[in-house]
């Protein structure tokens, strides 16, 4: 049986840096796609009760567009790229230079484009981490859902559910200021992945 032991300050710093590098590459990829500057906030590493994760995107009932993929390999985990409906429309507009066709929701083509954007960003996040750690991390094919944040994010907490009522996750916010495209990355490594990650980075507890 293994429970969460509190992480030392330097371990949190290491995770923050992991988020920084991964999200930094994803931000660059997004910036290239949009051909516009993309800012990102300093990643936050948080150990929060389950409720707290959906609180951070506006509450369990807040409708969001989410691209989810499972990370496989030596440090399995879950990854989400989350946008508000407004941001998702902004992203499509920026990227394709077109107004979205439907007032509410998206066409299949638009959803497919969003899924691919999520795929590209998550892929660049992960491949930079794999390079850094020399660990094998492979993303699964992404899936997209537009639904309540609580329903979506809870899916990423199942592995944590076996160990307690908290999850440790790395949260990074993206901003494309003037166009108001805002997105967030959640990397939620499985509980057993942290030790592997720390030892690959040369910080053992």
């Amino acid at each position, binding site marked *: *049986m*293994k*429970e969460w032991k509190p992480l030392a300050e330097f371990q949190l710093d290491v995770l923050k840096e992991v988020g920084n590098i991964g999200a930094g590459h994803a931000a660059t990829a997004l910036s290239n796609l949009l051909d516009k500057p993309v800012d990102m906030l300093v990643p936050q590493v948080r150990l929060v*009760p*389950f*409720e707290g994760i*959906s609180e951070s995107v506006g*509450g*369990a*009932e807040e*409708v969001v567009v989410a691209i*989810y993929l*499972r990370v496989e390999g030596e440090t399995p985990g879950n990854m989400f790229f989350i946008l508000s409906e407004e941001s998702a429309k902004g992203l499509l507009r920026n990227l394709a230079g077109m107004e979205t066709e439907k007032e509410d929701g998206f066409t299949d083509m638009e959803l497919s484009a969003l899924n691919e954007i999520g795929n590209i960003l998550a892929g660049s996040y992960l491949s930079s981490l794999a390079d850094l750690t020399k660990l094998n991390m492979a993303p*699964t*094919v992404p*899936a997209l*859902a*537009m*639904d*309540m*944040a*609580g*329903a*979506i994010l*809870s*899916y990423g*907490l*199942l*592995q944590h*559910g*076996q*160990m*307690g*009522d908290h999850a440790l996750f790395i949260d990074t916010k993206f901003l494309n200021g003037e166009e108001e495209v805002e997105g967030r990355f959640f990397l939620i490594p499985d509980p057993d992945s942290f030790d592997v990650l720390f030892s690959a980075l040369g910080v053992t507890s």
Partner: protein
Amino acid sequence: MMKSSNLIKVGMADLQVAAQPDVLKSAGLGSCVGVTLFDPESRVGGMAHIMLPSSDIAREGQLNLAKYADTAIPELIRLMVSRGASVKRLESKMAGGSQMFAFSTGSDSMRIGPRNAESCKTMLSKYAIPLMAEDTGGNHGRTIEFDCSTGVLSVRSVQKGSKEL
């Protein structure tokens, strides 16, 4: 004077018991299942927001009974009986247990929603509690509210609108 009702929030991996005229609410159920129990005579109601089917896989130190179908339902019954409900009169409703994402890789955790619902039903039949209505499965999230005055379970979803069970 009529007592005004309180809205009692049931968080993820949480359970709560209340009585008329209070309302129990769980927001954003995905693969989790919201199970309600109700004693129509004493108007005592309970709701559990269940996350996983079985506590066998638990690795946590202090077991959170509310999280697993096989532990949450007995605990909910125990608390409701202590509030004056009778096990013989209990009725159940449930909602949730969807598969938010469809994958062809199909590992076991992908099917967690349907498994949660199945496990809840197994527990209910163990206590001979009838399942009056359910809205489970699919691939969408749900928010549920249970009115302890009427025993009505309202289910709201983004894609499918609202319904009452």
